């Protein structure tokens, strides 16, 4: 169902990006709640389908699942300041994280990875990454995922030293 919605959305986006007159959305039904929350809270920068051409924003599509290889990486996503402080309750945020990781992340998710639930999200977001040098923290975390979990080098492309 989620994938059907994503497909319908991609059709709509195809229209939106074309140079012709803009028709009404091909799919008259709204995307599932988690996808809609992603679009409204995250999709402007991270891309409507998790892909962006900007180096100023990390790519999610096909990559974000690698973070679930370690407990630290799993906690990193809900502890990111814009995630932890999102105007969503724990249940809603868990649903958005699961959409991001399992739908947008696709094959990057390790086998057997469990979805987030509200209680876990509540624990992580209570410790937002506001007291650490975030760029350096991410760089170290990503280096470990590339070295030990076969994450591609593209996971590290969001790095201001590039």
């Amino acid at each position: 169902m989620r994938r059907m919605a994503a497909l319908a959305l991609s059709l709509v986006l195809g229209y939106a990006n074309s140079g012709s007159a803009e028709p009404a959305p091909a799919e008259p039904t709204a995307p599932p709640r988690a996808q809609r929350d992603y679009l409204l809270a995250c999709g402007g920068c991270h891309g409507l389908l998790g892909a962006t051409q900007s180096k100023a924003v990390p790519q999610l599509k096909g990559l974000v699942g690698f973070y679930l290889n370690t407990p630290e990486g799993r906690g990193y996503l809900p502890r990111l300041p814009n995630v932890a402080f999102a105007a969503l309750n724990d249940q809603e945020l868990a649903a958005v994280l699961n959409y991001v990781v399992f739908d947008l992340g696709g094959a990057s998710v390790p086998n057997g990875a469990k979805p987030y639930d509200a209680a876990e999200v509540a624990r992580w977001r209570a410790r937002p990454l506001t007291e650490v040098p975030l760029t350096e923290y991410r760089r170290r975390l990503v280096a470990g995922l590339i070295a030990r979990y076969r994450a591609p080098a593209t996971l590290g492309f969001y790095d201001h030293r590039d």
Partner: protein
Amino acid sequence: MTRTLAGYTSRRGFISRLGMALAAAPVLPLLPVGRSAAAEPAPASPSTDFERYAQTKDDTQCNYWKYCASDGVLCSCCGGGSHTCPPGAEPSPISWIGTCLNPDDKRSYIIAYRDCCGKPACTAGKECWCDGEDRELPVYRSPLNNDIIWCFGNASATYHCSTAALVSVAN
């Protein structure tokens, strides 16, 4: 019309059908169709000044429905369209996303506000400079603020004009 209607209706027939409808009303929500209809969100009603005065005909006007959170000069006044950049300008890969109410079908739609970049600011008249602020938050909540020039993600960060692209139905 009234005469034609009167030719095949009667007050007694109407009352009879009304009575049947009232009797059946408590049953209808139990039917699959009834549940499906109940799941549909009720049409939204205007809740902001922008929504009260929005129109769907002229995309070179600030009150065109998709511009409820557009901040800048309209690309539709600059040789582009409501959702397309003028020739020579590049759309920003990052954007602000909001929702606007379409006054025709009373449904909310998700809109991506992309800037067009790489050319000097469009010199359209001031009637094309708009500042829709529906669902916008102050700049200290930057992901929900539309004063930001989204061209910072482009090869050239020069701002030219603003677009509003339809993404999908919101609810």
